């Protein structure tokens, strides 16, 4: 992948992430204020709006992964796999603590954090995998 292409893909990732933050903030504000008593269908549509920039972000990241060389792709896939397992086990642990009334967490917070947690775990696992191959 050329330096320009990589820069463009990184730019797309960043733009999608910023769009996600802005859309989430705006939609939550709408749902808590202007659309508090709106019809269910409208609330559903507004609730799902932040998923659109997320899909663009995923597309940009997948392009970035596919454009890398064999070694980079391997590192990315390993990091993604480690992140998936770590977050899956983390969710299982949290759910068991929730059911046992040790901690309290709403579904809204719990589910909204799964995806960001996957990205954070992916970032950390990627640093580890990169170091391991060096």
């Amino acid at each position, binding site marked *: 992948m050329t330096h320009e292409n990589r820069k463009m893909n990184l730019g797309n990732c960043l733009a999608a992430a910023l769009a996600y933050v802005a859309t989430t903030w705006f939609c939550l504000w709408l749902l808590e204020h202007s659309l508090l008593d709106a019809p269910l269908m409208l609330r559903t549509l507004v609730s799902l709006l932040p998923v659109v920039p997320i899909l663009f972000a995923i597309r940009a990241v997948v392009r970035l992964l596919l454009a890398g060389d064999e070694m980079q792709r391997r590192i990315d896939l390993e990091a993604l796999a480690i992140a998936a397992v770590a977050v899956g086990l983390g969710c299982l642990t949290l759910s068991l603590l929730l059911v*046992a009334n040790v901690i309290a967490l709403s579904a*809204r917070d719990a589910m909204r954090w799964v995806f960001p947690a996957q990205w954070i775990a992916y970032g950390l696992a990627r640093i580890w995998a990169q170091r391991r191959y060096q």
Partner: protein
Amino acid sequence: MRATDKRYLRELLPSMAVYTIVMLTVWPLVRTTDDVMLRALIAMAPVIPIGFTTRAIIRHILAADEMMQRLHLEALAISAGVVGVTSLIGGFLAAGEVISLDGSILFWVFPVLAGTFGLARSLAIRRCDAE
């Protein structure tokens, strides 16, 4: 059966059996204690055998050839994406009070991840065979 497959079964089956035993005998004790620390320890007990199950699966994947490893990793990456986006959709629908869920929904993340992984793996292997 290959030696690695035998090792896989030797590691997987006992950990699954221990998980079942823990869920049936230890976990119900969580309701009988008021001490938060003890309750937390009992609540997290099933994570230990699940950790061993995960270790067995990872060792099995790492013992496979380059192509199978690639297919497994791709399938895991796809399942992570699907679970992540689905969770996000659920989270936003709960935030918008369109659906009502409680935090214990997190329990389903790991099983759904495993189920999607199995499905993505079968599709990847089929795609690979067709090529």
